[in-house]
C-alpha cells in the first residue's frame, strides 16, 4: 500500500476503532464492563450480523417484553430535549420512533407485539436477541448515545437495508441522491450504463450497490475503501444483494487500488470525508463519539480529499466520463467548481452544483470533456 499524501496513512493499517479510541472524544464513552455481541470489538474479521437477520432463538413472555418496552419508553421520554439542546441530537419523539423500529427488528413476528386489544396472554414471543440484551442495547442508545443503526446493525437506505457496524459510516439520507444523479446520467447514455464505475471510500457499499443495481448488464463497479472494517461490511452487503458479479470491493487508499483501470472509468463517484477538522469535536454525540473519524475528517477546511479526488479524476475517466462528489455544502461546492475551472480549464464540461432535498448545495457533478 503506497500512501504518500494523506494523513490517514499513518493509521492506515490500524483498525479503525483503535484510532477512534485514541481520539479525545471517545474517552468518556469507553465500553463499559458489560460486553455484548453488538459492542464487541469491530476488529473481528467477521461482519456482525444485524439483529433483523439473526435467528429467533430467544423468547420472552408478553408481560416481560411489555415491561421492557415501558422502561425503554420512559428512558426515551426522560431525555426530553436535552440532546437537542446540548448538541442538536435526537429529541424524545424520535427516540420513541427508534424504539418502535428496534422492536420491529428484534421481535420475530411483530404483529404479535404489541398485541391488538387488551388481551393479556402470556404466550412467549420469539426474539432475535435476549431480553437482557435488549435492556443493554437501549441503555447504550440513550446513555452512550450510540447510534440507533449500530444498535440494530443496519440502516434503511433507498430501497436497501445495509448492514453497518462500528467502524463503518452510517449512510446518510442526503447521499441517496448520488444514485439518482447517476441514474440520470446513464439513462440516455449506453456507454455510461454499460461501463466501469468506481465508488471511492465506499463505507457500507451504499453508493456502489445503488449504482450496481441501475447499470446495464455489462456495467461494473469497483468499490474501494481504506478501512478494513468498511471493506468487510461493503463485501457483506454486496453479497447480500447478490451483486458479487457486478461489484468488486478493493482495499486501499483512494486511487491506489485502481491503477489497472486508469483512463478506463465511465464514471467516478465519491462521498469522501469532508468535515473540517475543527468541527469534529462539536458534532452530535452519535456521530462524533461513535462514527469513525477516518470517515468524517476532511482536513483543515474539509477539502483535502475532495481536492485529491479532483486532481486525479481526469486521468481516471474516459473522455465523456461522469463524476459526482458529495460535499459539505455551498462553500465547498463553489470552491470545488472554481478549482476545476481554474486549474483544469477546458478539461471538464457541464460542471454543475446540485442541491440536496433540504435545499443545501451538496453535490458537484460533471463530465470529463470528450477528447477532440
Amino acid at each position, binding site marked *: 500500500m503506497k500512501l504518500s499524501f494523506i494523513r490517514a496513512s499513518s493509521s492506515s493499517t490500524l483498525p479503525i476503532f483503535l484510532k477512534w479510541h485514541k481520539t479525545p472524544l471517545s474517552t468518556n464513552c469507553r465500553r463499559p464492563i458489560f460486553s455484548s455481541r453488538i459492542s464487541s470489538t469491530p476488529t473481528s474479521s467477521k461482519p456482525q450480523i444485524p439483529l433483523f437477520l439473526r435467528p429467533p432463538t430467544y423468547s420472552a413472555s408478553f408481560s416481560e417484553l411489555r415491561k421492557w418496552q415501558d422502561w425503554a419508553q420512559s428512558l426515551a421520554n426522560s431525555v426530553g430535549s436535552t440532546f437537542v439542546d446540548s448538541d*442538536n*441530537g*435526537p429529541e424524545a419523539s*424520535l427516540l420513541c420512533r*427508534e424504539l418502535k*423500529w428496534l422492536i420491529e427488528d428484534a421481535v420475530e413476528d411483530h404483529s404479535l407485539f404489541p398485541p391488538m386489544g387488551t388481551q393479556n396472554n402470556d404466550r412467549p414471543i420469539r426474539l432475535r436477541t435476549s431480553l437482557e440484551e435488549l435492556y443493554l442495547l437501549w441503555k447504550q442508545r440513550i446513555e452512550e448515545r450510540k*447510534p*440507533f*443503526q449500530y444498535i440494530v446493525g443496519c440502516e*434503511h*437506505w*433507498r430501497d436497501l437495508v445495509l448492514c453497518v457496524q462500528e467502524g463503518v*459510516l452510517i449512510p*446518510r*439520507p*442526503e*447521499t*441517496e*441522491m448520488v444514485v*439518482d*444523479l447517476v*441514474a*440520470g*446520467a446513464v*439513462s440516455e447514455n449506453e456507454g455510461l450504463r454499460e461501463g466501469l464505475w468506481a465508488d471511492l471510500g465506499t463505507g457500507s457499499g451504499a453508493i456502489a450497490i445503488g449504482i450496481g*443495481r441501475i447499470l446495464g448488464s455489462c456495467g461494473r463497479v469497483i468499490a474501494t475503501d481504506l478501512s478494513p472494517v468498511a471493506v468487510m461490511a461493503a463485501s457483506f452487503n454486496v453479497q447480500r444483494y447478490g451483486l458479487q458479479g457486478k461489484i468488486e470491493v478493493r482495499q486501499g487508499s483512494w486511487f491506489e487500488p485502481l491503477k489497472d483501470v486508469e483512463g478506463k472509468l465511465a464514471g467516478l463517484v465519491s*462521498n469522501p*470525508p*469532508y*468535515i473540517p477538522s475543527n*468541527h469534529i469535536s462539536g*458534532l*452530535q454525540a*452519535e*456521530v462524533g463519539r461513535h*462514527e469513525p473519524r477516518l*470517515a*468524517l475528517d476532511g482536513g483543515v477546511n474539509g477539502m483535502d480529499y475532495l481536492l485529491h479526488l479532483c486532481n486525479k479524476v481526469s486521468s481516471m475517466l474516459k473522455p465523456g466520463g461522469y463524476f459526482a462528489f*458529495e*460535499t*459539505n*455544502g*455551498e462553500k465547498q461546492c*463553489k470552491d470545488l*467548481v*472554481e478549482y476545476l*475551472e481554474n486549474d483544469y480549464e477546458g478539461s471538464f464540461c*457541464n*460542471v*454543475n*452544483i*446540485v*442541491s*440536496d*432535498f*433540504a*435545499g*443545501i*448545495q*451538496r453535490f458537484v457533478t460533471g463530465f470529463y470533456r470528450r477528447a477532440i
Partner: protein
Amino acid sequence: MALLKSFLILPRRCGLLLSSSSYWYYHYHSRSTFLVPPKIRITARPLSQQIQSVQRSKPLSTSLSSVSKYSTCSSDGNDFLRLSDQQLMDQCEMSTFKSSGPGGQHRNKRESAVRLKHLPTGTIAQAAEDRSQHKNRASALARLRTLLALKVRKNVDIDAYSPPQELLQILPAKSTIRGSDCGSQIGPNNPKFALGMQALLDLIFAVEGSISDAAKLLGLSTGALSRLILSDDSLRMAVNELRTSKGMKPLK
C-alpha cells in the same frame, strides 16, 4: 426505480397551460366548500435552470431545491391520476424537513421525512413514518394520488352519463351496469382505487350530493352505494363535506 429516475430525467417537451374549463379545484379542507376555476399556469423551465448550471460570469443563485422541476408530457396533462409515478413526480417539488445546520456527514437524526408539493394544484402530501427517505417518498406519492382524487373535480354530463371503466371497477358485483369483463371489485387498498374514487366523486358532485341519484346512474341501490362510500375514510369525508355544505345529512 422509475420513481427515482424521475428526479433526473427531464421530459422532452413541456410547457402547458392549465386552464381547461372542465377542471375545477375543490378545496377539500376548507371550512365551507367552494369551487374555484383554476388559474394556474404551468411552464416547465429549461434544463439549465433546473439543475443549477455553473457559469463563472454569473454568481450562483440559491434556489430552495434543485429538484423543483415539473412538467408533463401528456397532452391532457391535468388528468393527474393517469400519470405514471415518474410523470407525477416530475410535477412535484420534493423537500425534506429542514434541519438546522449543515446536514450530510454531520448528522445522525434519521430525518427521512419527505414532503411533496404538487405544483399544478398546490396539494401537499408528506410521509415520515418509514425508515428510509426512499420509502417515505413512495408513501407520500401514494398519499398524493388520494389527495388529488379528492381535490380535482372534472365536469360530468349527467344526461349522457356513462361511468368510466375505473369507476365500474370499484363498484360491487351486483351493479346492473357493471359487465362481467370488469374483473373483481377493486378495494381501497388497491392503488387503482384512487382513479375510481375520483370518478365517483365527479358524479356525486354533478348530482349535488344525492346518493340516490348517483346510485341510479350506477345501477346500484342507494344502500349499496352508501356502503361503498363508507368503506373508505377519505371518500366518506369528501362526500359528507359536500353533503353538509348543501344542507344534507352526512352518511353514517
